[in-house]
Structure formats: C-alpha cells, structure tokens
C-alpha cells in the first residue's frame, strides 16, 4: 500500500479498498456455498446415497433446463408469471401506497377503514381466489387480482405506518418553514415515509411471488407455478426443480431491483462505512 503525506486520501483509499475486499469476499462466499451444496448433491445422488429418482442430480436438472429453454416452455412460463406478478404488484402496490398514505394523514379515514383492512389482510388472499374465479371466470383477471390484493394490503399497512412514524418535530419544522398542504406532503411526509414504504415493497414483492405461484398451482395452465405443479403430477422431478429454481431466481432479481431503487431514492440511508 502506498502512503502519501495526505492522511485523508490515505484513509479514503484504505477504507474503499477494505470495503471492496469485504464485498468481493461476501460475493465469493455467497456463490461458493450453493456450488458446494450442488457438488455434494451431485455426488450423493450419483453414488445412490440419496434417491436419484426424487433428488435427481444437478447435471440432469441442468440438461432439462436447457431443453425447456430450447423448446420455449421455460421462457414462456417465465414471461407469463412475470407479467402476472408485475401487473398485479404494480397495480395493487400503487393503490396500496396511495391509500396507506391517505389513511396515515386523515384520522377519520383511518378510523373508518384501518380496522376493516386489518381484518381483510388477516384472510389469506389466496383464499379469495375461488370467489374471484366465480366472478371473473378462469382467465388472467382473478390471478392478477389476487396478486394485487396481497400487494395492496402489505403496502397499505406499511405506508400508513410510515406516515404515522414520522417524527412530529419534523412536521412541525416543515410547516414552521412554510411547507403547508401539498408542499408538506411532497417535502416532508413522502420522504419521511419512504423507508417504511420500501420495507413494504420488500415484503410485498416476496409475498406476491408466493401468491402468483400458488394461483398457478390451482388455476392456470401456464406459468412457473403450473410448470412445477404439472411436473409433480407427471412425476417429472427434473422439470419441477427447474421451475422451483427459476421461481427462486425471479425472487432474488425482484428483491435486488427493489434494493437498488431504494438505494437510489434514499441516499441518506447510505451504508454505514463500519459494516
């Protein structure tokens, strides 16, 4: 390591180098663990230590994945599931954020709706699917609406909590410095409740994935959920694993996107240099 006679530059260099090193190590560990597990799995099932019919070796799963990509089944299912998920999540989530903020601001609205929503949230949204199927018939609408419902409730609850959790002194300071009405909303209420909204997005996107998979189990003939369920019925564990892994990847990517946006929108919550 070079040392100049500028202590600030030295320390900056040292700390960026340190955090880069730590990040690389974390990444390496994060990749190594699943690979090691896969190797163990491969070894165990090819030596018949575990039942290779149920726990088919990763190499076979990989081959199946390639086939499913080639004949377009996997990409098609992935696309369908992503669309259902994103449309439902964005629709339900946006309405949820809006409603949650309104409930957070207006006490009368909160008194009127908050208990009702809390009760409805306690009903597993997937349980409403049959009702939606009765109303809308088998089509895309009931599936998207189920995803939208779960996204709505999670974001409504978190956005409301976010508004409620803003330090009253900040609201006071805001209005003392001339932020009233709409300006108070844009410059104090919204930034102040962003952290809670993002907590809601993180939880919501994961739950939405659970729900879309579950609806595809029972009420679809396309999508990753259908792929998994159908493979079980045909006893094709290879395809089932491919479906499961793809679902997991979708989850990882969506959570990552939410994380990226949250870093962009909330730079003040920057990572602590000490971690």
């Amino acid at each position, binding site marked *: 390591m070079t040392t100049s006679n500028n202590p600030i530059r030295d320390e900056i260099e040292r700390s960026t180098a340190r955090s880069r090193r730590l990040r690389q190590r974390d990444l390496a560990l994060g990749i190594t663990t699943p690979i090691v597990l896969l190797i163990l799995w491969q070894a165990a099932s090819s030596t018949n230590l575990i039942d290779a019919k149920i726990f088919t070796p990763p190499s076979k799963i990989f081959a199946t994945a390639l086939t499913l990509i080639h004949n377009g089944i996997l990409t098609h299912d992935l696309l369908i599931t992503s669309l259902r998920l994103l449309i439902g999540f964005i629709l339900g989530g946006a309405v949820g954020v809006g409603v949650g903020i309104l409930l957070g601001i207006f006490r009368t609205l909160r008194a009127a709706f908050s208990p009702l929503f809390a009760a409805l949230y306690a009903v597993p949204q997937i349980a409403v699917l049959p009702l939606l199927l009765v109303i809308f018939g088998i089509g895309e609408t009931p599936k998207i609406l189920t995803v939208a419902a779960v996204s709505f409730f999670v974001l409504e609850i978190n956005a409301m909590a976010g508004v409620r959790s803003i330090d009253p*002194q900040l609201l*006071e300071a*805001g*209005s*003392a*410095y*001339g*932020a009233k009405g709409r300006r108070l909303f844009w410059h104090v209420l919204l930034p*102040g409740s962003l952290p809670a909204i993002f907590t809601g997005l993180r939880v919501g996107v994961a739950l939405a994935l659970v729900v879309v998979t579950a609806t595809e189990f029972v009420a679809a003939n396309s999508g990753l959920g259908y792929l998994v369920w159908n493979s079980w019925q045909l006893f094709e564990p290879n395809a089932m694993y491919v479906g499961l892994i793809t679902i997991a990847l979708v989850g990882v990517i969506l959570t990552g996107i939410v994380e990226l946006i949250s870093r962009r929108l909330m730079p003040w919550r*920057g990572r602590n240099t000490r971690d």
Partner: protein
Amino acid sequence: MLKSVARMLPNLGERINKVTGEEQDWLVRANQITKVFTTNGQGILALEEVDLTLRQGSFTSLIGPSGCGKSTLLRIVGSIETPSRGSLDQRQSPRIAFVFQDHALFPWLTVLDNVAFGLKMAGIATKERYRRSQLWIERVGLAGFERTFPNALSGGMRQRLSIARAFVTEPDVLLMDEPMGALDEQTRLLIQEDLIRLWEETRKTVLLVTHSIDEAILLGDRVVIMSRRPGRIKTILEVDLERPRSLHTMTDPRFVALKDTIISDLHDEVMASMDLR
C-alpha cells in the same frame, strides 16, 4: 392586562413603567398565557398566566430551571403550539424562523438543502437560494459539508446547521431554543460573538432560550427569568450594557453584578424545584 402584570410582579413597579413605555413598538405579544398538557389523563400545568412582549428589534433572553416551560412559551410565541388560555397578538404577520431545541433537521436532505429549505418553500429561485445558503454554510463553518447528510454530522455541527437554516430565511422574528446547548466552550464563544455581530448588524427581533447566564446577559437587551413549574415570569432584568458588545463585556462590573442577581434568583428556583421532587 397591565393590572395582571402588576399582580404578578408586585415588587417590580418601576420595571412595569418601562414596559408601558415600550408598548408602542411591540411585534409579538403573548397575553396571560396558560398552558396545560394532558398525558394519560393527567394534567400538567406548564405555564400560568404568562405575559411576554417582544419589541421590534429587541433581543430577549429567556432563562429558567429545566422543565419550567421555556420551550413551551417559545413555541406558543411562534404559534406552533396553542395556549390553553390567553391570546397571542402578532403585528404585521411577521415571518418567524425557529432554531429547535433538538434541531429537527430533515434527515433526507443534504446540509445544503436543509439550509435552503425555507427559501425553497418561499419560492426563491434555485440559483439564488443556493447562493444564499452557501453564504450561511460558510458563516457557521460547515463549508465542505454541503453534500453531507445530517446523520453524518456531529452534534455541534447539527446545531450550527440548524442556526444557518433559520438565519438564511432572514426572518422578522427569530426564536432560538438553546441553539448552543451542545456546543463545546470554544465553538460556543465563537458563535456567541457571531451572534452578537449578526444581531447588531441586522437588529432582528429575537427570543433566545438558554441555560447559560453569561449568554443570556451577553446577547440580551433584557433577561426574562422564569420560575419553576408552573412557569411564570419571575423577574425581567434590563441589560444596561452598551453595544457593540464583545466577549470582553463579560468582565464589565455591571455584567458581573447582573450575573450575581440572576444567579441568586435562579438558585432559589432551582433549589425549590429540587425540593418538589
């Protein structure tokens, strides 16, 4: 109203005459303010029949035992708290800026944007508001930290930021709640000198809540001493020290005598408030 002042301050007849003479140029006037807080069904009498007049261009220091209602009075004067009884008169709807006791900085704004907040709300164009904010950032010694977020500042730096945020708006009335509470002695002296200079240049109407007797006298035209809770005005002392003042004013015999008076006044109150516990 004057009668009630007389009732509250029976032994201060000559001071009341002074107050009467100043009636013409008041800017903010709090009349017979009583404030009761209710928490968990319990009522706390924080202020009882307090009168306070801020003259145009005057510097009022407010001092008193902890918990006696200084912050409450300041917030009522700035009309961000409503009195339970009594009224508040403001002349020409003055523009008011606060330095809050616990800063209340916006964590999502950088130092620069925190300072510029009031100007932004007042509709000042971007360039102009950053120019003026930059000036104040430099004056309070935060240059180089413009893009930093408040959570990365030290306590004293946050305090200076909150001073800059108030001053930059060029208010008619400046309400400061222990603006130098968390500063070290050196920085405190520096900012006190700054405040003296700034005030003597601009002659804003200022209400300063402080725990420091030195600061109260050094900066104030008068020192208002409050009694323990329920807060009442116990004494109002005029500070007859000529301006411009500097830190050397603290060695003036009149300063020392005034300080002595305040110490014994406060001592009684603080001792009594300890007994109450």
